[in-house]
């Protein structure tokens, strides 16, 4: 039986091994997972789950899509599934929080534009929490589309390929996600006004 490490093929028909895929893409997948999850410490589990899927499906990967698109698709699915499971578990047990309201992992860093003083860092953290709090109120598909387009900067075509849908659907989802995001933001601002 062909070992999975040797079975996958890249777009150029070069055999892909699990090790090579992991070495080349683990960091990227971890960053995607963090971006999709938000401030959560669960990204390690997500990365592990993604590569468990990769290990299982690599023999069937024929290079029809770019490896990065394929990995992104798996990451998105694993994150969505994990969030649904977490939400279900939270509802079932009556405790726990929404997945992106946990402790802010130290791995989240300020952008180049953020001032380097502690006050600015604190504000950036609060802004991050607020952003993901608003995103958590969107449906899973809307949330994913919003993050991929607005925060990751992917194109509509790429999002369509990753989420296995048509590009027109991507725009519809984005439009709804934006509308809902604004509604939630306004509601939150109205609540916090003195």
């Amino acid at each position, binding site marked *: 039986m062909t070992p999975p490490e040797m079975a996958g093929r890249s777009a150029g028909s070069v055999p892909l091994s*699990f090790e090579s895929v*992991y070495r080349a893409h*683990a*960091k990227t997948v*971890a*960053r995607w997972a*963090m*971006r999709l999850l938000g*401030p959560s410490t669960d990204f*390690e589990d997500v*990365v*592990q*789950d993604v*590569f*468990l899927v*990769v*290990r*299982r499906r690599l023999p069937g990967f024929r290079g029809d899509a*770019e490896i*990065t*698109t394929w990995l*992104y698709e798996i990451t998105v699915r694993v994150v969505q599934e994990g969030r649904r499971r977490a939400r279900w578990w939270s509802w079932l047990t009556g405790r726990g929080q929404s997945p992106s309201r946990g402790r*802010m992992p130290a*791995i*989240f*860093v*300020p*952008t180049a*534009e*953020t001032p380097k003083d502690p006050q600015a860092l604190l*504000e*950036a*953290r609060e*802004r*991050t929490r*607020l*952003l993901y709090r*608003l995103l958590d109120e969107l449906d899973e598909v809307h949330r994913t589309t919003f993050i991929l*387009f*607005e*925060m990751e*900067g*992917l*194109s*509509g*075509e*790429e999002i369509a390929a990753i989420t296995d849908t048509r590009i027109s659907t991507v*725009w519809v989802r*984005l439009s709804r996600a*934006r509308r809902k*995001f*604004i509604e939630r*933001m*306004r509601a939150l601002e109205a609540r916090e006004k003195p």
Partner: protein
Amino acid sequence: MSQHTEDPIPRWRDRPRGGEAAEDRAAALIRGALVPGEPDELLLARIGQRSRRRSRSSLVPRLAFTTLFLVVGVATVLAARRVGWLDRILPALSPAPEPAPLRAHRPRHPAKVASAAPAAVTDVTAPEAPEANEAVAPPPGPTPAVPAAEDPRPRRQAHASRRAASIASPEPPAPTLSDEVRALDQAIGLLRRDRNAGAALSALDAYLAGYPHGVLSREARLARVDALLMLQRLDEAQNALETLPLDSHRRETELQVIRGELRARSNCARAEEDYSAVLARSSDAALVERALYGRGACRAKRGDGAGAAEDLRRYLERFPNGAHAAWARQWLESAGRSFTKGG
């Protein structure tokens, strides 16, 4: 993955800074948030190590969940059996006996009905015409039951008889609900599936003897009425119905129509009570048709020409092609003419 900026929809974060619109505030929120940094090599090595193992982490919870669901499922079924819940829902799950195929006979030609002997039970209890309307044929009374043809095939009969015999001479019945349900189910099976009213009647009688106060005895008595109707034993069917409380039964209205049709053979006044009750509350077209015709016929028989004319007119308005439409028209044209509006 490459980053594109050629999408037809511009990104919020590319909006000019300093705006006050909600979209500008959202853009500022996105721009000012922290971004994921580079995970360190040690962490990635640890995750990679775990990923290289067999998918124990996903297999174990799945097995645990499956086992848990199986245990909970089995425990639920056992508990349900223990408290008798399954026995209670079994009658609801088993196919309900369909209503007996009761249909009113098509009215005969009035002239023939006039000369027909009204007393014959199987010949329909044609209410006699009121004396004032001697010339008019009396309305044919509703026929309470038309039995479905029984299967003449001997093998099937023999099988049914064996089943009936096994039910008719049961071993001393254990006082459990499931036994009772099984016995009644077999009897109703003879009636509904095998269409063997005789065997079903024996089985039902055996059941009622074995469980005279069983929780399903009312169902058994109603099934017995169906069997008697199929056998054209109308007097017995009527007697059985007279002693049965019909209220709150799912077939209450239908049974009341049947009882009215049976009563109409000898007592039109009481039949009218049933028909009126049905007409007051039912919207089922088939039952309304039978009740409306039956009451009209009974009123004609009792000499209430105006009432009969009203009922038959309503009948024709609602069921112009009904089974009794021809007779109703004929009666209205002759005897009922004096009672019709402006007639």
